[in-house]
Every structure is written in C-alpha cells, then in structure tokens.
C-alpha cells in the first residue's frame, strides 16, 4: 500500500478522499492556492503545500507543480477528485512517467471517453445504444445548422471535449440556433480549451440514469447499480437517488452489463460511471462515460456498503477487487442533495460571500460531505457547491422524510443556498410518487411553492425585525438568563458560606 498520497483538489471532495486514505493508514498531502489558505481541506491534511499561480483556479491545474510537490512530499500516488485535472489524460500520463501512480483509469481510457464524439463511435461499435446524432465534431455554424435541420428540432448542442453540462444548449428551433451555437462554443472553449461541438437529437421526457462500475488491473469488473440523477437545473445535477424508482432487478443487471461492456471497450481500470438517457419505454441510450469519481458517489456507497474511494486507492496500489458481482447486495434507499451557494428564487444564480455561521445536520442515516466551515469565503473562483447532504433510509419514503428533516436543520448564514428548494422537492408529489424526468424543474416545480414557504415566515420576520430594530436603538435588551456572577460567590453559595 502507498505510504502517502497527494490530493490535487480542494473542497469537500479533497476531504472525502483524505478520509478514505486515513482509514487505510495512508498519509495525506493537500495542495492549495493562497486564497484557500484557511479552507478546511488544507487543515484536514497531514501536510499541505502551496502552489503558486496567477489565478486561484490555475493552481489546481498546474500539472508540473503538482507532480513536483508530490515528489517533494514523498507522495507515491495522486488522486485527482472530480473537475480540475481529473479527466485530463495528459495529467495521468505525466504522473505515470514521473514514476507515480494516478488513482484512476489509464490515460487511454480517459482520452477515448473524453472525446465525446470518439466515445460515441467506440460505444456504437461495442454494441452500446447511443442517442441519434453526430459522431464527428463540428465548429462550422452552417454545417451545424444543416445537421440540426436533418435531425429535426429540438436538438441538443454539446461540447465535444467535455461534460458536466458546460457548453450544453437545448435548441427548440432554427431561430435561436446561431445564438445558442456560438454561446455553447464560447463556454466550451473556456471550460475545455476546445470549441468543437456535437449535436444530438433531444429526447423528450428522459431520465438521467447512470451506472457505477469498478474494475481492477486484472480484468475483474463489477457494477454497483444505478443512480437516478434526473433533478437538474441548467443541465446540472442537484438531487440524486439510488436506487431509481424505474428499474427492477432485471433491468439493473441489463444496464449494468451494458455499462461494463462500455468500460471493457476502453480497458477501463478503477471507478467510473456510465451515463444513460432513459425514456418512458425503458429504452436507454449511452450519454457519456465519466472516467473519474462522481460528485454523487456517496449514495451508491450508502446502498452497497462499499467505500468507493477506498477501493479506488486499493486498486491503484495493485490490489485485486475484494468482491465479485454476487457479493453486491443493495439495501435501502439513499438520496443526495447538493448544497449550492445559489439563489433558488433567482434562477439559481450563484452567490458569493462569507459563511457567517454553519451548523450541519447529523444523526442516524445522515451523512454530510462538506468543504466549508464558519468563516469560509465563497468566491467566484470555484464551483459554488458547498457540501453534499446524503441520507439513507430503509425505503425511499423514509430516506425522503429523513432528508426533509435534515435539510430543515441545516443552518447556513451569510449567503443564499439551494436548501429551501430541496425541502420543497422533498415535499413535491411528483417527486414523491410519480415518474419524474430531467424537465422536472421546468415542468413540475412551481416557484410559487417556494414563495409560499417563505411567506409563512413573514409574521415572525416582522416581530424579529422589530426586536432587532429596537435592540439597535436602545442597546439595552438583555440576553435571557445571563447572570454575571463571580465564580467565588457561586462556590460560596453552594457550600452555604454566604
């Protein structure tokens, strides 16, 4: 096993990875840009090294300095987390050629799946069903328009080089095509350094269902079942659950098998996720493969009782998978709510500011993977995800109820978060009882529900404001039950001396 590993990431995922490493008795090394000096991941690590760079973000993208730091700190392996360098094959390559171990798949698999058009081609050959659309990249507006006409609107524009919803645009008709295409190109260029786009037919009423797979270096593969990630805003996941309400045992294994075929087609090693679009007829289509740890991996951990990150590290250290497909038993239900610094009352606009106070939920069946603490600054430099709240229940109903209660006990002061929205979803009838798809927020979520929840506080807010106003004006309202007594007097009283 490794003696020491470096985590080339920040926030909750850096801490999540370090926890797994510490459980395995491995020393953890953090890197940070100086704006992150007081961020929790730096202080959770056994050792921390500053990366000097022009912008905060580029510190976590500086391959040369990260590898140099790994050597300097005596780290034998690097875990990239998600985002940043996690899906950059040149990073994995550089690590291997520096004599270190990349905790993740081999460079070839990252490259093959990272190029979304090439991946579609490969999958199609491996017999994995794909969404109708282009298999080549496009940069020319007119050519793109022709293809869109051929596929018939609505269509979806996607960044050929990336994922995560960046550079993605749904286009309803030819009128808005040019504007959307150019916007998608700009976003894609910024996020992935490549402005090529591919076009897919937009499938209506689909769910986003993904399969977690894991494989070792000896050709052993296991799938860990599905996650339903259909609650999305801006094509980005916000609430996930496992298992999905629309899969049964048979379909789970069928999709699992297809996902494993996809993985085998690129000689995949370590943990990965194969994403599918899933329609009302229970047909499914390959969307993409994420060749890294996913944000939402904890819900799979909760229902399979397998610590995915620990397995990742063990696999990278050359260990065989310690379980086979028959050992995987799913139990209960798990939900994840991503806690974003975003305003659900204002189209999920990102918020910046300072966490003035934080009290996170806890208790049986409640897990918080958090990257913040009281005093943390939330800047525009990084993704606005603050933490993930995960609950487990014996069945779906109890997981949802536990989530609602846990969300309600979350105390985050200083900036707006998605918590009220998530409470409302836990109470939503469609989410609770019916088929929901990726259009849930647009079609089945009424902002009025949120407004109503807020209105219920008005009378209390009025009295609190009046109280605060008066306190400020008079500065003499006492805090209840505070007696400033001398400790000697108290001691004296208790001994009957006074």
């Amino acid at each position, binding site marked *: 096993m490794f003696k020491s590993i470096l985590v080339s990431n920040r926030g909750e995922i850096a801490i999540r990875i370090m926890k797994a490493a510490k459980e395995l008795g491995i020393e953890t090394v953090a890197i940070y840009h100086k704006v992150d000096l007081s961020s929790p991941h730096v202080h959770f690590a056994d050792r921390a090294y500053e990366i000097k760079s022009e912008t905060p973000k580029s510190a976590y993208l500086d391959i040369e300095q990260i590898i140099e730091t790994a050597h300097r700190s005596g780290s034998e392996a690097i875990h990239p987390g998600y985002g940043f360098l996690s899906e950059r094959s040149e990073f994995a390559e550089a690590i291997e050629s520096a004599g270190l171990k990349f905790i993740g798949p081999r460079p070839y698999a990252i490259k093959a799946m990272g190029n979304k058009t090439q991946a579609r081609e490969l999958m199609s050959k491996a017999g994995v069903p794909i969404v109708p659309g282009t298999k080549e990249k496009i940069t020319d507006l007119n050519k793109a328009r022709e293809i869109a006409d051929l596929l018939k609107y609505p269509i979806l524009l996607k960044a050929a080089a990336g994922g995560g919803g*960046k550079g993605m645009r749904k286009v309803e008709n030819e009128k808005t095509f040019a504007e959307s295409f150019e*916007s998608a190109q*700009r*976003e894609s260029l*910024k*996020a992935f350094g490549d402005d090529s786009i591919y076009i897919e037919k937009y499938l209506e009423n689909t769910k986003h269902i993904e399969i977690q797979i894991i494989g070792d270096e000896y050709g052993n593969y296991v799938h860990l079942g599905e996650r339903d990630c259909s609650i999305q805003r*801006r094509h980005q996941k916000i609430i996930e659950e496992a298992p999905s309400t629309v899969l049964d045992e048979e379909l789970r294994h069928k999709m699992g098998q297809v996902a494993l075929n996809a993985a085998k087609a690129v000689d995949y090693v370590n943990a990965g996720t194969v994403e599918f679009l899933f329609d009302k007829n229970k047909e499914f289509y390959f969307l993409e493969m994420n060749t890294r740890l996913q944000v939402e991996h904890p819900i799979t951990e909760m229902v399979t009782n397998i610590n995915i990150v620990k397995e990742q590290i063990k696999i990278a250290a050359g260990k065989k998978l310690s379980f086979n497909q028959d050992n995987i038993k799913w139990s209960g239900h798990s939900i994840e709510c991503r806690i974003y610094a975003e*305003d659900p009352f*204002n*189209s999920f*606009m*990102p*918020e*910046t500011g300072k966490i*003035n*106070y934080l*009290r996170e939920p806890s208790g049986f069946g409640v897990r918080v993977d958090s990257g913040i603490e009281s005093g943390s600054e939330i800047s*525009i430099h*990084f*993704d*606005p995800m603050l933490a993930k709240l995960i609950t487990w229940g014996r069945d779906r109903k109890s997981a949802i109820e536990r989530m609602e209660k846990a969300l*309600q006990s*979350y*105390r*985050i*002061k*200083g900036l*707006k*978060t998605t*918590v*009220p929205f998530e*409470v409302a979803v836990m109470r939503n009838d469609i989410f609770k009882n019916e088929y929901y798809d990726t259009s849930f927020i647009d079609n089945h979520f009424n902002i009025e529900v949120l407004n109503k*929840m*807020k209105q219920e*506080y*008005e*009378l*209390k*807010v*009025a*009295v*609190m*404001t*009046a*109280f*605060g*106003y*008066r*306190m*400020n004006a*008079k500065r*003499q*309202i*006492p*805090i*209840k039950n505070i007696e400033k007594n001398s400790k000697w007097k108290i001691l004296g009283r208790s001994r009957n001396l006074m």
Partner: protein
Amino acid sequence: MEEIVIQIGENEYKASFSENDSNSIMVNDTAMKIELLKKIDDRIWSLAVNNDVFLIEFNLQSNGDATLFIDGFAFNVKIINPLRQQLKKFIKSKDSEGKSRVYNIKAPMPGLIVKVLCTQDNNVNIGDNLIIIEAMKMENALKAPVAGKINKVFVNEGETVEKDYTLIEIIQLN
C-alpha cells in the same frame, strides 16, 4: 410607546413595543413574545418567538432597512419609523405623478460580460435575454423583468463587473 411599520415585499406589518417589557411586541394586533436566547456574534442570534427557537442572521443597514436570514430564506425588510413614514408619503405623491417606472438590471454576481444582446432604444418583452454574464465557468442570461424600452446600456462585452453593478436601465412601457 413607539410604533413602526415593517414592510416585507408588498405586505406591511405594524409593530408596537410595550413600554416596560422588552420581550413583548404587538404585530398587527397580535401580541408576540420574543426573547434573545443567545448571541453568537453581532449578527447571528438564537431567538425564541412564542418559545419557537430560530437561528437568524440580522443585518441592520445604515439606511435603516434590514436583511434577515431564517431557515434558508433571505428577507429584505424595510423599517419605517414615524420619521421615514413622513418621508415616504412625500416620495409616494411625487411618484404617482411620474408616468413610467425605471428598472435597473444589476449584476447578480461579479463576472464577465460575455454578450450584450440589446441596444439603447430597443423595445424588449418580458423574459427577453438582455445580457449574458459569466461567472464560475457558467454563462447566465439576464432577462428583462418587464416589457419596456432600453434606456441605457452601461457595459460593453468583455468588461468585468462587480456584484450589484448597474448594467442596463429599462423604462417600463404600459
């Protein structure tokens, strides 16, 4: 006895304080009991309203208005004391004489102006995209809150702006 008006959105609440009991406040003729249980810092308080416990953040601004965070909800509250009441009446009577309302579109966060989709004197409809601003790697479209005429555009493509910077002024058309 002091009486103030608390304005939350469209609703107004009349609050009056009891002379000698700082923990009793009448709001719209309902007597409420309020206690400060714990002050975590100047702004973060644990309060009990009729014994229900809440953790709030209360910021009183220099103009007398306040923001209040409670259970994930953010409230912008106007506090109108007798002095401001007079002032408000004055402003209101002036306001009703004017015909058109002016809306300022402000930057919701610090970011980069990627695209300006409207020009001065353009007419726009509710929901039209006006500006695309990029922050945290995402492009966000700012939409017109009302139908109206673009009175002024204060930014150019490629500029970076601070939070709350005024980007566009729209005059509402009836």
